[in-house]
């Protein structure tokens, strides 16, 4: 019996460290392509750094454009990863174990990328210094910085704590195969982990506390982002529903992004034995609920704004439903909201491929929705002068694509160092689920174990 389990353990460790040792031609080609896109984005930013925000499509009226849309969308994705992982950990969902590392890594990386956008939007990074040197506490921007920094710190800790035992596994089991610099990283970051009861106790305490803390922190971050819009007295933004509306949007796109990341790494590193279709399907159920909730919020928002025939809001609703932005709005509603929900709801289309398509549509649709929140409101004149149109520029597109490419690139490079599956957590869950239930006959334990394996 033991030999079977040892074999399983070996298989698990091998699978978890597979990306560390397997960098075939496909990996190199994908890395190269992503690196080129990131380099083009960096070059575009250097161009903006030298020539100023004039190279963007931003103008005096539409002063927030693609950069702020990216900020909201990418941090939303991060939020989804962190909250899903925290909730599943707190509720002791056994099926979470193979995907928590991917979800948490995605949360951290997308947060790091998303947090760059306020700096890009400021035009010159030195402006950050002014914000910090003479902060204006009544400005939402300063609260954005405080919220994002707090969330970054919490996410870093949330990602790092469950990683410690796995780093110790790498330190002890990979030996010289790991290479000198990886060995050094494992040595330093594993914090002398020896799986002592005291260490386990501390780790469990820290992980549990962080799982609890990360949820309100993430909610507050996205609420602050929502309030940056909602506390301005502008039609289309000034809404009490904006806080939860943004939070649900973030969760919806975040869970969709987790599905995309999990499915991509699962396929690329042949992790099908550990990350099963079940994991992707369960995530899609969460996505289904959140998608329906988001569509409900959208309907509720439009109904309450439209029904009062408020003169300030009507032009925006007109432009969204039947005007200039109508095609984009309906593209979001149908392709980004209704179709993903239907794909998940219909058992026949609820395959891994179907769910990946639904997730890709949801992530793109939610980006589009953020565009429809930001731009149409800014196009509404506050003064009796005509406003200028906004359609972005090549610089903004290049920086956006560069940032989007940086997320998978950093994840791929990250898993060249860190185990892609949380071995410690897999073992913990397996141990808990295989413990004999009180009152069960010995024979039944065997049946239970057999069903689960």
């Amino acid at each position, binding site marked *: 019996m033991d030999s079977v389990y040892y074999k399983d353990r070996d298989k698990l460790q091998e699978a978890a460290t597979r990306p560390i040792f397997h960098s075939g031609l496909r990996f190199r080609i994908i890395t190269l392509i992503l690196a080129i896109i990131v380099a083009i984005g960096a070059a575009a930013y250097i161009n903006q750094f030298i020539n100023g925000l004039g190279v963007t499509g931003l103008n005096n009226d539409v002063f927030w454009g693609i950069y702020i849309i990216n900020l909201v969308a990418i941090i939303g994705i991060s939020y989804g990863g962190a909250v899903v992982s925290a909730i599943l950990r707190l509720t002791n969902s056994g099926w979470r174990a193979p995907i928590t590392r991917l979800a948490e890594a995605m949360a951290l990386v997308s947060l790091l990328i998303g947090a760059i956008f306020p700096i890009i939007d400021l035009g010159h990074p030195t402006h950050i210094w002014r914000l910090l040197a003479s902060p204006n506490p*009544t400005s939402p921007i300063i609260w954005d910085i405080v919220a994002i920094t707090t969330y970054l710190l919490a996410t870093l800790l949330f990602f790092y704590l469950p990683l410690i035992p796995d780093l110790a596994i790498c330190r002890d089991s990979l030996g010289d195969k790991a290479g000198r610099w990886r060995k050094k990283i494992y040595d330093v970051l594993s914090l002398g982990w020896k799986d002592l009861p005291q260490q386990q106790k501390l780790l469990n305490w820290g992980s549990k506390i962080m799982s609890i803390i990360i949820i309100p922190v993430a909610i507050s971050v996205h609420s602050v982002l929502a309030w940056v819009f909602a506390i301005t007295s502008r039609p289309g933004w000034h809404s009490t529903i904006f806080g939860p509306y943004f939070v649900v949007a973030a969760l919806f796109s975040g869970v969709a992004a987790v599905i995309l990341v999990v499915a991509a790494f699962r396929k690329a590193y042949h992790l099908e034995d550990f990350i099963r279709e079940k994991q992707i399907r369960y995530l899609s159920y969460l996505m289904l609920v959140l998608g329906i909730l988001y569509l409900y919020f959208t309907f509720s928002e439009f109904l309450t704004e439209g029904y009062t025939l408020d003169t300030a809001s009507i032009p925006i609703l007109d432009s969204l439903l039947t005007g200039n932005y109508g095609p984009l709005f309906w593209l979001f509603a149908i392709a980004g909201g209704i179709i993903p929900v239907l794909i998940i709801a219909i058992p026949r289309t609820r395959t891994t491929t179907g769910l990946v398509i639904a997730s890709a549509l949801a992530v793109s649709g939610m980006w589009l929705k953020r565009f429809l929140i930001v731009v149409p409101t800014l196009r509404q004149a506050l003064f009796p002068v005509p406003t200028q149109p906004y359609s972005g520029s090549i610089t903004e597109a290049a920086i956006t694509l560069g940032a989007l490419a940086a997320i998978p690139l950093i994840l791929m490079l990250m898993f060249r160092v860190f185990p892609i599956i949380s071995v410690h957590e897999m073992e913990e869950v397996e141990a808990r689920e295989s413990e004999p239930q009180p009152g069960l006959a010995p024979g039944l334990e065997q049946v239970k174990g057999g069903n689960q394996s």
Partner: protein
Amino acid sequence: MKHARRLFKIGMTLFLALAVTVILANWVWAAEPSTSGTTRIIMNITQFDQGDNQGIAVSAQLTDNGKPLGNDPVEFDLSANFFGAQQVNLATVQTDATGTATITYRPTAEGEYNFTARFRGDESHPQVEVTRTYTYSGPVSQYQPEAVGLTAIRQWITPVIFLGVGIFWLLLIVIAVRTLGGIRRAGLQGTTKSKSYRKFGQVVYQKRSSGN
């Protein structure tokens, strides 16, 4: 007789041609408003000072052939360098019985102001407008927000939020120090590794095996 008939025909033809010409001319002229050039706007800009109420009064008198045009809309624009050169519409005012429309404006700074008064025209009058520059020196408008409620609460909101964020950061630091520092210290102090250490990863499976 034959000669008289021919004369009659020529006369009739000329008469019809003239009638058609008159009708056509009338139709063409009617499509265009009267462009006699007699519709005018006379703009008058004065500075006024009535105690707390100070500023510029811009009045425009709309006349046609010297006769005032009452109950017609006059637009008042201000050329402003507001995010670039802009024509800001200040107001649209109906003329009174004397053909006069007046607005008052309190500038935000001393200096030159370009006011435009515009009548967009109607069926019988063309569009006319006039622009005048006025150099203002006097008291300027200052933004004075109206007093709002919740004053007692508002003054505490920012410090309370800062305090909350500070406490939260402290909590994160405590968690990090306690967990990471504790793990590190325990690892350093643990001279002998736990039984499970060498077989790390196997422990749970052994437990499971023993359960069976």
